[in-house]
């Protein structure tokens, strides 16, 4: 697809001169103007554009925050208060960044479930999918590091608990943890390095996003039927059709985003983070941000420290290999009657783990988090390979155009 010929025609002397030296406008035109895109994409396909918007918001607000933030154990908390009270528009910019992290994860999770539902990870999109899993991994690390920066109680104790996960490594765990801390406990050196890396990682994400889109444009978008593009009739050009659709979705998303920023900026946060970090007192309940709760539930579901950590890491890393775990011949869950209920069970599992991650790991809560943790892994390791082998798919349309035009015809007779 990326080798489809761009219809670009330089319009003036300068662009002709540029085109012969660096055909960047030709490339952009080919990839984002006349790029052939399946004609049947639904709104779940707008989340890629929404995610690009989120990344830009985080970069811009983050670089501004860094102009006023002081990465020092004695001053970080004060400097964030200074941003909130003194800096012109500081509260708006900080709330946008903090809420932005949540919106980013919301969009990323929807984007990923979209991929799981329509089988977008299956051949030939394995590399595209793997790049996506790498992006979510780096995003998780970036958000964790960003959350540490205001140096409130939750920041400090989240860093303490998470860095202590490394002590679970046999023999060298202790030395690795001290290396991460730059001391014998979480302190000023730790805060400084977290800030340095929190500034760096979003640019790593940007680079990965570049590769992700490159890989997308080599194989082309999947679509709700999971049937590959066969003829030109199956596609429309990216501009104006999908630019408009993506733009509309970004605006709708921005409304939700703005609602949180203006009306509930602290709703997604934790009140303990308004108390400055105190290494002598642990808050009564340590709860991560909502987007980490399912992973936190998995960590705590397992009674052994080392295996708990391993399970939590595997919960993400298992996504790397699902292109090879799924044995189904067809992509879209739309035509997979046997797999469909399992897919929804998996969605419920993730939501339930998110709920349980915020509860004390005792009694029925602990039991439930164990059951759902078990299903999380069973889904990938057992259901995906086995169901694909035994399932008889429903009839899949011959082409994208068929599926779309057929539908139109039926709706016409209904009128």
């Amino acid at each position: 697809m990326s080798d489809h010929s761009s219809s670009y025609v330089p319009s003036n002397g300068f662009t002709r001169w540029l085109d012969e030296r660096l055909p960047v406008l030709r490339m952009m035109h080919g990839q984002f103007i006349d790029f052939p895109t399946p004609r049947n994409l639904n709104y779940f396909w707008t989340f890629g554009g929404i995610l690009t918007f989120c990344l830009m918001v985080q970069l811009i607000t983050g670089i501004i925050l860094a102009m006023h933030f002081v990465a020092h154990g004695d001053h970080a908390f004060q400097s964030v208060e200074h941003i909130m009270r003194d800096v012109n528009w500081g509260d708006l910019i900080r709330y946008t960044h903090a809420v932005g992290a949540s919106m980013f994860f919301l969009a990323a999770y929807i984007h990923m479930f979209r991929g799981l539902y329509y089988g977008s990870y299956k051949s030939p999109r394995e590399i595209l999918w793997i790049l996506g899993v790498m992006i979510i991994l780096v995003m998780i690390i970036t958000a964790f590091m960003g959350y540490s920066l205001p140096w409130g109680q939750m920041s400090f104790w989240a860093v303490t608990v998470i860095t202590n996960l490394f002590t679970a490594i046999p023999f060298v765990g202790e030395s690795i943890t001290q290396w991460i801390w730059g001391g014998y406990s979480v302190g000023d050196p730790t805060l400084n390095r977290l800030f340095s890396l929190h500034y760096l990682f979003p640019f790593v994400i940007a680079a990965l996003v570049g590769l992700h889109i490159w890989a997308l444009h080599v194989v082309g978008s999947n679509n709700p039927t999971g049937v590959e593009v066969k003829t030109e009739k199956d596609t429309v050009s990216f501009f104006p059709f999908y630019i408009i659709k993506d733009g509309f979705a970004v605006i709708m998303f921005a409304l939700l985003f703005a609602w949180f920023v203006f009306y509930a900026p602290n709703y997604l946060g934790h009140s303990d983070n308004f108390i400055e970090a105190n290494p002598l007192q642990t808050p009564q309940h340590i709860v991560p941000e909502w987007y980490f709760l399912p992973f936190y539930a998995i960590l705590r579901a397992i009674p052994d420290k080392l295996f708990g950590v391993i399970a939590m890491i595997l919960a993400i890393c298992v996504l790397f290999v699902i292109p090879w775990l799924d044995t189904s011949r067809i992509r879209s869950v739309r035509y997979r009657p046997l797999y469909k209920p399992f897919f929804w069970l998996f969605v419920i599992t993730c939501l339930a783990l998110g709920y349980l991650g915020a509860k004390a790991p005792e009694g029925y809560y602990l039991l439930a988090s164990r059951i759902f943790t078990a299903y999380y892994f069973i889904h990938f390791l057992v259901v995906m390979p086995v169901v694909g082998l035994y399932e008889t798919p429903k009839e899949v349309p011959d082409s994208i155009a068929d599926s779309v035009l057929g539908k139109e015809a039926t709706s016409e007779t209904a009128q």
Partner: protein
Amino acid sequence: MSSDQNDVGRRDFLMVAAGSFAAVGGAAALWPLIDQMNPDASAKALASVEVDLAPIKDGQAITIMWRGKPVFIRKRTAQEIAAAEEVDVNDLPDPQSDSARVEKPEWLVLIGICTHLGCIPRGQAAGDLHGDFGGWFCPCHGSHYDTSGRIRKGPAPRNLEVPPYAFVTDSKIKIG
């Protein structure tokens, strides 16, 4: 022919030698970049503190900072010592006798960091919970420690650590 073969042998040798030098040189250049993150001279300089024990009464506990970590110092009562000593060591998750954890039975000195994931257990202040075994209780994930600071129940794998310390005089210790 034979000189050709010599050439090949010599080239292989040069390739391997150059490769090894590059690898060793690369590793040597990398080390400072990694090691700079380890605790620095100023962190190590704070490595020891002296504590005067004279003002601490029976059953009282104080917390001091050592290397950025809280250290719990507790003057144990006779019952607490007895409770710690009479446990069957083999029943413990991390078997250790009380006498191996103290210099003098009435003074218990511990690093106040839960060995699970690093929270500060409760049990120092007067009104605190002490857990099911009369020592400390970690609220993060529910670990219970006894009057010797040993793990008795909950997810923590090890006993609270005893820092290196020595009595300088009868009523003064040096930690570190």
